[in-house]
């Protein structure tokens, strides 16, 4: 529910800044509540609760630009803060591309409900939260004598933000989130493998902790006896929950700031093939209760559904308003919302059966990617697979290559998208990947 005092504060800050020398202003006022419970050995390890609020302001002063934030919301403090910020901004160089977005591209205040907010948030009994965390750990009791430690956690949050642009655009966002997670450590002899699992929901009554602890333990147990194998070119099947790590490196060069700063290997590639036919990605901000669903972005641009990649052909970039003006391109949005993938017809098990020789990757470790060249190198862990059979767990290996090539080597997409995440990635299989090990 809107807090009218916060709306008035945002409106006041915008007006105050324009009256004191700013030509245009964008103000965001936000507040949140969060709570967290962590449990170990059926004892509360930690309880944390927080309530916070803040204001951030983008100032456009005589063709110059700066951005500021503070959590001190007393108006006398804010007056001084805004005045000094405006004075400081005037020392900067002019930047002709800095202005508020065109009004016709902005959010117009439609009342579409994306169903992101649980009105029961404030009425949940703290005891129930503790119980959930306890249950997550309790279900692992006696599962296996090699368990060293299982942490069960519960987290929730309620978030609100108010956007006021001096051109008349206003917006309000409200959302809640809940999650239950488990982290397990196992005595595996020389090594103490660990793994985690979590369930997330927008609504309290959709949250379930059942099986979360057990699954975390099972995943950790499967890692016992991991070996590093010989280096070589092999197939790689990435489990759905890890696909985001490599995908983010493909998205980085699609961002306006990388394109404009000549740090993108995808410059000039719209309409060209950058991946195998199997890769089709839609950015959909309107997914009901979606993790990144929204009606407008940080600039105040109205959200729209867009095709990012269709049958391997790049369709769009992520261009925010500023870099759009600098690149002379129409802005899309400055950040991804929910990513929806064209799915295949097999699950992870069936895809594993299809492998001739390779590694089923269940986690990444460190690594990085260069958006200017597409070069990447990342640590992997998972399972060695030969003729469709999982032979043993694998650790201490890297994959190395270039994003210009690897996405063309995508040979299968799973039917198993992660529907409770913003990036609803399915499992994906690649051929001819360079693994380094022994």
């Amino acid at each position, binding site marked *: 529910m809107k807090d009218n005092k916060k709306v008035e504060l945002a409106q006041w800050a915008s007006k105050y800044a324009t009256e004191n020398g700013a030509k245009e202003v964008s103000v965001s006022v936000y507040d949140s509540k969060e709570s967290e419970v962590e449990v170990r050995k059926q004892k509360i390890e930690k309880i944390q609760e927080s309530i916070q609020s803040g204001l951030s302001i983008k100032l456009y002063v005589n063709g110059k630009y700066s951005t500021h*934030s*503070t959590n001190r919301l007393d108006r006398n403090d804010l007056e001084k803060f805004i005045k000094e*910020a405006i004075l400081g901004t005037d*020392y900067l160089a*002019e930047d002709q591309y800095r202005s508020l977005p065109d009004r016709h591209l902005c959010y117009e205040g439609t009342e579409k409900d994306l169903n992101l907010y649980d009105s029961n948030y404030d009425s949940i009994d703290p005891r129930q939260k503790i119980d959930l965390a306890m249950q997550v750990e309790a279900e692992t009791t006696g599962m296996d004598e090699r368990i060293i430690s299982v942490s069960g956690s519960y987290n929730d949050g309620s978030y609100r933000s108010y956007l006021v642009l001096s051109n008349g655009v206003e917006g309000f966002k409200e959302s809640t989130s809940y999650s239950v997670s488990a982290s397990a450590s196992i005595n595996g002899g020389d090594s103490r493998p660990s793994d985690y699992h979590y369930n997330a929901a927008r609504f309290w009554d959709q949250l379930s902790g059942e099986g979360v602890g057990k699954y975390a333990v099972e995943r950790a147990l499967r890692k016992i006896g991991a070996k590093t194998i010989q280096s070589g070119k092999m197939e790689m099947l990435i489990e759905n929950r890890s696909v985001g790590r490599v995908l983010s490196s493909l998205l980085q060069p699609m961002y306006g700031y990388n394109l404009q700063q000549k740090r993108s290997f995808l410059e000039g590639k719209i309409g060209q093939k950058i991946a195998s036919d199997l890769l089709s990605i839609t950015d959909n901000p309107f997914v009901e209760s979606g993790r990144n669903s929204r009606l407008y972005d940080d600039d105040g641009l109205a959200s729209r559904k867009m095709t990012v990649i269709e049958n391997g052909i790049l369709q769009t970039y992520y261009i925010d308003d500023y870099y759009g003006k600098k690149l002379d391109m129409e802005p899309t949005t400055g950040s991804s919302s929910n990513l929806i993938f064209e799915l295949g017809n097999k699950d992870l098990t069936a895809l594993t059966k299809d492998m001739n020789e390779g590694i089923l990757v269940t986690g990444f470790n*460190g690594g990085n990617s260069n958006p200017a060249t597409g070069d990447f190198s990342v640590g992997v862990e998972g399972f060695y697979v030969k003729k469709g059979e999982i032979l043993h767990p694998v650790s201490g290996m*890297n994959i190395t290559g270039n994003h210009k090539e690897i996405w063309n080597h995508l040979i299968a997409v799973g039917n198993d998208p992660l529907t409770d995440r913003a990036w609803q990635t399915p499992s994906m299989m690649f051929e001819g990947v360079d693994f*380094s090990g022994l």
Partner: protein
Amino acid sequence: MNNEFSRREFIRTGSFSLAGMAILPSFLSMGCNRITEQSGLEEYYAHFNVSKEMIQKVIAEGLSRGGDYCDLYFEHSLSNYVGLQDKQVNRAGSNIDYGVGVRVLKGDQTGYAFSEEISLEAMKKVAKTAASIANESKDYPPINLQERVHPEFCKVKTSWEDVSIKQKIPFLQKLNDKVFNLDDKVAKVQVYLDDSSSYILFANSEGVISFDYRPMVSFIAVCVMEKGDRREDFFASRSMRIGYEYLNEELMDEIANEVVEGANKQFEAVKPKAGQMEVVLAAGGAGILLHEAMGHAFEADFNRKETSIFSDKMGQKVGEDFVTIIDDGTNPNYRGTLNIDDEGILTQKTKMVENGVLTGYLHDRISAKHYNVAPTGNGRRESFRYAPIPRMRNTYMEAGPHTKEDIIASVKDGIYVDTFTNGEVQIGAGDFTFYVKSGYLIENGKLTQPIKDVNLIGNGPEALRQISMVGNDLKIDCGTGTCGKGGQGVPVAMGLPTVKVAQLTVGGINA
């Protein structure tokens, strides 16, 4: 969000994600009484608008349900950034963060809450929340607070709060011009100057009250070069807990040369072959090896929970005699240096490995009590919004008996690595990685062709055993290292002499 899992700890030394970091002319203290680096306890009380009696009342509330211990962490942080892009200093920003965190401990259990409003009523409310970790009813007499005086490891001549944006701008412009003047291939340059000043007031139920001023500056350049249809980028950064006096011609020349040489080298660079090989780590930033492979696994919270691969190795020989690894909070003006930690404990030079033997973990208050040892001053937090946990400060290896030349000459077929962007470790499995931005192949004892963009992976205890040569040239790096753990980022520094690891797995290409 719940996607940070404490077993996976990482570090970023790169500068490519500045969005959201917090310019202002001498940004004043927002309706509070101005405090400076020279202020005393009474001025800190006045700044936060609190009194000894208020603090006593809040601590009593925190302990009212039977907690063993309570502390209050007041923070006021002011950060500024100024940025150059496309040859113009055309962006800037600032951030103010203000509040108090209240923590109550009952054995190993933690209750935590914070308030962005500092009044008796607001603080008592959050103390009550934190107190709920215990469940008895108890009355505490007021605690007698005694000031804990600490040394000053991070002296400044001119504090950042006294420096206007007008004074900062010429440094960014000059650094940009230097980079462009060094090489015709330079196509794009970005420069950022970030500074912050934090004022901390700390009090606990053991009667300790202390205050601290914490300055920080980071100066960063990113450069993109074009040669034909190829593009390569590189970055260079410096960060210290120091004042405006840090900025000078020499520093700008250093950063400009580093970023131009680095980008140039990338055009010649190849990827090495995939597999295990000898790896020589250059003196300085390669200390990331210690941070990832050993440092995190020596943090005592992981050992208390027995989830670290080093949990059962205290007192054991874990490396060669010439391997001594330190975590130090006292190096003057380094990024990881603290006068007192975030639990009011004096910092120190802590030996984790001495002459090859594991001698000590890095402790916060909870783990020190658990192990019945004195705390080591490693209890740190990102801000008043977080409860402290054991963290590294400046982590480095002491100099050894070998020379850099001998170390390189001893390698027939391997790599030499000198610049890094990030790393990660899995505490229990011990597998750690770090990403190499640049280095060289070593062929028959000589550095030959440059290499780039490869990840190295190894296992902590194994890598420690495999350190076969240690140089006499220890260098502590002054880059912008930020360590992430449990969702909290804290500034750290790393150092290393030239070191040879007999075997690490190098990401590369298969023939």
